[in-house]
């Protein structure tokens, strides 16, 4: 083993190219890993506390501000929780519109992450900015693709960060069929870019590393689940939405303002790879082809393949988006109005779980009889991954040391690992078990 790696103190303050603030700490003495942590230093924001006292109409406007990237996902989970509490059934049209927006957000996030944040590592660039000169076509394609999601969100919900039109029970403004047709054609024109993305990432080889863990996601009998479904893990647990706490066990650690989550093992993983491992059979045929091309097959235990799974999902979402658009256009837009009043005298709890780009997101609210939030619990995907990232560190660092990596190389590899998880630390609102009495 190289002398230099005998002892090292890897400390990466503010891992770049991730959302929010996180630090990596790894201490190696005499070639042995003695301590490693992924610190989340994001200032605590107390969203659960701030939700208390907000009206059912405004809860979504508050929680979308948890995360600029997953704003539509938070919005959707929030609306589902509120609708659950109100006892509102949404229409098929609303469901399709919501799914389209969720897909658009997956696309934006996955593409942003893979092209802007991960790709520079493979091209040996410090960021996407110099790549604008060296790999102009790649960067321009990335920008085009990213722009597409914005266009979709603009038509459907006003904008991507933070969505405007969607409210409990439906939409304050519906798109026109004419507008949808234009948008559909526009989306269809991006097929070549989507396929080129698969080709590009097929040429990149993720570092060799594997560690099996428990993979958590929602699942639905009829589709590759993003919008709704039971909560499940690869270890065979499956519960319906309201019982999410039977899988998601949260705890507070001092080095992280974001809470850690586990089920039966020491940690679990959520996100694209977890969804792929759990639900791969339901992917569309184009996505399955892409998975073959990218060399991804379930079960996959290399966390670096989370990025590969993201590309596979982007192909799935892209084609599913077209399908949903066609269905909407076919059905025509019905002039449905959302309720403007809270159901008289109703109070109670509601849970909404959706899959956002980084994994399973839970919103759980309690409302009083005036439609005012009295209690809230949010489970953020990134939080669920934190313990798993640390577990990966514990497995990966010794492997790197064995491979004779220098301190700089270790640091870089760990940063890449963190980035592979696509952590969104600004989301880490976090919270403690709140018992609703």
């Amino acid at each position, binding site marked *: 083993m190289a002398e230099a790696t005998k002892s090292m103190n890897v400390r990466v303050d503010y891992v770049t190219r991730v959302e929010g603030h996180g630090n990596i700490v790894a201490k190696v003495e005499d070639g042995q890993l003695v301590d490693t942590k992924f610190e989340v230093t994001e200032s605590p924001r107390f969203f659960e506390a701030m939700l208390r006292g907000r009206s059912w109409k405004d809860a979504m406007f508050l929680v979308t501000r948890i995360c600029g990237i997953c704003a539509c996902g938070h919005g959707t989970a929030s609306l589902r929780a509120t609708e659950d509490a109100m006892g509102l059934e949404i229409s098929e049209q609303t469901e399709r519109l919501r799914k389209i927006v969720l897909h658009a957000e997956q696309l934006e996030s996955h593409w942003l992450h893979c092209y802007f944040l991960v790709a520079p590592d493979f091209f040996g660039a410090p960021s996407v900015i110099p790549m604008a000169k060296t790999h102009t076509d790649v960067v321009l394609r990335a920008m085009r693709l990213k722009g597409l999601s914005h266009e979709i969100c603009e038509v459907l919900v006003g904008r991507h960060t933070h969505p405007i039109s969607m409210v409990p029970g439906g939409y304050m*403004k519906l798109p026109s069929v*004419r507008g949808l047709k234009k948008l559909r054609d526009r989306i269809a024109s991006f097929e070549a870019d989507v396929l080129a993305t698969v080709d590009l990432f097929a040429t990149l080889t993720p570092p060799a590393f594997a560690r099996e863990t428990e993979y958590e996601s929602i699942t639905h009998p009829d589709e590759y689940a993003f919008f709704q479904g039971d909560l499940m893990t690869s270890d065979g647990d499956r519960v319906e939405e309201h019982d999410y706490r039977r899988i998601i066990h949260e705890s507070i650690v001092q080095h992280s303002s974001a809470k850690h989550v586990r089920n039966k093992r020491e940690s679990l993983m959520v996100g694209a790879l977890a969804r792929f491992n759990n639900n791969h059979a339901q992917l569309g045929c184009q996505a399955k082809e892409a998975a073959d091309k990218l060399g991804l097959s379930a079960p996959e235990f290399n966390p670096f393949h989370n990025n590969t799974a993201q590309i596979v999902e982007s192909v799935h979402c892209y084609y599913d988006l077209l399908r949903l658009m066609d269905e909407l256009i076919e059905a025509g837009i019905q*002039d449905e*109005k959302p309720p403007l009043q809270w159901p008289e005298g109703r109070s109670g709890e509601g849970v909404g779980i959706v899959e956002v780009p980084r994994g399973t997101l839970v919103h759980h609210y309690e409302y009083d009889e005036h439609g005012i939030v009295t209690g809230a619990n949010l489970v953020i995907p990134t939080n669920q991954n934190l313990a798993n990232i640390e577990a990966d560190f514990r497995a990966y660092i010794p492997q790197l040391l064995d491979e004779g990596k220098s301190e700089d190389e270790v640091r870089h590899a760990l940063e890449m690992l963190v980035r592979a998880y696509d952590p969104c630390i600004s989301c880490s609102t976090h919270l403690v078990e709140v018992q609703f009495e």
Partner: protein
Amino acid sequence: MLPQVLKRNDLAAWVEALMADRTVAGPVLKETNVSDPSDEKFEWTVLEDAGDLRLDYNLTVLGPKSFLWPPRQQLVAYRLDDGPDPQPLIEHEPTVLLGVHPCDATAIATLDTAFGKDIPDPHYLARRADTAIVGLDCAAPCHESSFCLDMGSLYPDSGFDVMLTPMGEVIFVEAATDLGRALVKSAAVRPATKDDMEARQKFAEEKRSNFHYKLPYELKYLPEVLEQSYDSLVWEAIARRCFSCGSCNTTCPTCYCWDVTDDIADDLSGGVRTRRYDSCQLDTFAEVAGGENFREERSSRLRHRMFRKGKYILEQTGRVGCVGCGRCERACVAKISIKDTYVQIAGTR
């Protein structure tokens, strides 16, 4: 040309024929109200489909004005190097405004005067000259806020090329200008019969009986009534509720004040001087460098608007500055009403 009639069923074909040669804008359904889906809201927009046109529309937030005088209009383009070479941007395309109510037609005539007098403004006039106006007579007031009868805009003398009067199964078509006569050529019209003429007459009588005067004095006295109220406390009282949000101005079919900004192109290679609607109700409208603001009080701004509409524009152009459409009252969240104000000042000093 003698009056003609068009069968309602033939309207769409005519609109399509017009669309072949010109951009056609007209009223269409915008949305229905979230709190009351039977409450339809309309807007003026470029027609994509002749079937979208709604001759039974009542109110729109913005009138047809915005096609002649867009909320944002580029005036001058230049480069940002040593040779700025400023060039005028005057854009226009053959357009038909289809379904202009009498009040809006009157307002267009007022705008024509404002932009055409003294030093003409070709940025407006070029669009105007390329636009045909097809009026649409109304049988009843659009809304309780309208007082078009008082303001003399119910029977416009100009501001249109063709006037349509929908009467049951047929539409009465009267061309008023050469351009109007040319437009009507592509419509499947037939000469009006005696019965049609009688129906037209009946329509006019009914129309007249549906409108009522709302001001306790004639329009010609309005400038004087205003002048006498200049020092009244009424302005202060009304303005207490005013948000200075300018919605009254931005929606008014005769307002034409504007602000100018120099906008730099995204590639920083040039710039464009752009004008956009401004509002005399905004805080900074009359502010000059050094912080001096000649109409600092909400009340003085409110008074200025009411005077301008009822007196100044009339004195400057000889045309009414307010056509009584009621848009400003409807747009105002605080429900400040120009009509009620004009009523109120008659009783105060």
